[in-house]
């Protein structure tokens, strides 16, 4: 059973204001997550804005320094003591997918430049191998290399561009892909294309995902484990189906009750007059 993700006592405190009077915001409050499995998994981290789920993602991606505590992904220490060097081995193990695909690529560079760079710089492939790897990754997300070559961000729809971003993350065959709200900028009716893609990549390509979202329905649909966060603390963690069908923590229940589903109405309809 490989340890996919383990955080112990992970804290992050933001100090606001000058030296005289400072207000503390506890973005991460003693987070302890332990995910062990021999098969690739999708772990969802759900919570509302300000719950700390994005800070957790950024900490694991080493974009934010934690105040204390440690975190490891497979055998890479990504936070706290003994952090492995921020080099090719870390980039090979952990890759991100960002929320807004239009912000994830520079407006002045063709989109496929990032794919080729990842292939050569991170995966360490030479020119020819890189082209194959890029084409293969694009095929895995249902795109053809020719549709992407030399094009700029404004020549894609949100959904297409996000798939290119996923393809880029696949190239170095990372142990864990951390997706921070990957579908919130995509049209509701086309989100499932990306969500189903995650499931397919888990099953066929053997990639594990950390899926950060405020949309519990998509979390229920694809994840194996769910972590519920509120105001910086981890309130509940466990197998997705179990947590969602009979939540233990009151906040999880409140969250589940508040979702406007199309199954049961909050208010029974008075007998319709017209």
């Amino acid at each position: 059973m490989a340890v996919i993700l383990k955080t112990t006592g992970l804290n992050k405190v933001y100090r606001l204001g000058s030296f005289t009077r400072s207000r503390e915001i506890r973005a991460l409050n003693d987070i302890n997550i332990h995910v062990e499995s021999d098969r690739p998994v999708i772990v969802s981290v759900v919570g509302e804005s300000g719950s700390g789920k994005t800070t957790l993602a950024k900490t694991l991606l080493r974009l934010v320094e934690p105040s204390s505590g440690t975190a490891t992904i497979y055998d890479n220490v990504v936070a706290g003591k003994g952090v492995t060097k921020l080099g090719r081995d870390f980039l090979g193990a952990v890759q991100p997918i960002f929320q807004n695909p239009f912000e994830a690529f520079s407006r002045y560079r063709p989109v496929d430049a990032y794919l080729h760079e990842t292939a050569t710089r991170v995966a360490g492939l030479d020119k020819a191998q890189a082209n194959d790897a890029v084409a293969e990754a694009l095929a895995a997300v249902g795109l053809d290399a020719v549709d992407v070559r030399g094009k700029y961000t404004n020549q894609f729809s949100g959904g297409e561009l996000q798939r290119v971003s996923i393809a880029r993350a696949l190239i170095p065959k990372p142990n864990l892909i951390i997706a921070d709200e990957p579908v919130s900028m995509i049209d509701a009716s086309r989100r499932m294309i990306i969500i189903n893609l995650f499931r397919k990549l888990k099953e066929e390509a053997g990639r594990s995902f950390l899926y950060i979202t405020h949309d519990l329905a998509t979390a229920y649909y694809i994840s194996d484990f769910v972590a519920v966060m509120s105001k910086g603390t981890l309130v509940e963690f466990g197998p997705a189906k179990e947590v969602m069908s009979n939540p233990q923590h009151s906040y999880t229940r409140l969250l589940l009750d508040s979702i406007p589903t199309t199954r049961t109405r909050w208010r029974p309809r008075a007998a319709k007059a017209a």
Partner: protein
Amino acid sequence: MIRLNNVVARYTTVRGSINAVDGVTLEIPDGCILGVAGESGCGKSTLMKLIYGDVTSPMSLASGSIEYGFADGKGRAITSDNIRDVWFNRISYIPQSSMNSLNPVVKIGKQFVDFPGSDPDKKRVLAQVREYIGKLGLPAETLDAYPHQLSGGMRQRVMIAMATFFSPDLILADEPTTALDVVVQKDILLLLMDLQEQMGNTILLVSHDMGVHYQVTTRMLIMYAAKAVEYGDSESVFQAPLHPYTRMLISSLPTIGDDRARDGIPGRPPSLWQDLHGCRFADRCPLATARCRAEEPMLVEHKPGHWAACHYAGELADRAEAA
């Protein structure tokens, strides 16, 4: 009764002009909550601007007319031309980006009375408002606070208070809860439903979230590529959708506790810059035939009080009944 007669909203830009709303005919009964749904770019927000009378260049009401069916203080019937005089009096608007729709450097109270629709005796109005917002779950001193001192949920309540204080006949809410967390969203939606019940007026609610529509609306309008494709009572639209697009829209949403496979609608709406003919959903529709591509389906009443713009809507209705 609000009646739309084949309204067309046109955008004229340097690259030419497109019809963001392309011929919508509709009768909206009084006292209902009409949900307007559809993918982004389908024209739902443009329709709202049209009905509200916020027609400024580059957008224009190219053809068709709107009859509002209510009058202003002096008994004059309201039409598209004089609608502006009754803004925030007989008709009001709740904007989408409510988070920053309040003037950041002016106190909330002042923003309640700085528009012509409100009563000139500002002190009296403010006293009434102070008492009114209590009913909406806002403390009285909210009026003396500045917008940045309020939470997102409270600011949205202020917007709703502003829009409902003069109990208008028609309220237009454009994605009122999009920027809010799901817990706060529920309170706001319930508040809107209560207010509508008390005032008995009509609310037009635009949202991209079908779940919100299911919970809140009594009637539903589905739009696709600037056309109205389905219109009817919410219950029947959700239970037995007549248009394939509505059906796919509803079935594409994952629901907790329901493990059926869901897949998004492939492809993309057609570009309004091309000249389109036939059914605009044909390219993405599993039931599309040659007839769909050639002849544009009209919005027809296939079942009592339930319209759909699809040549095969009738068969779908019978098949649904049979199942």
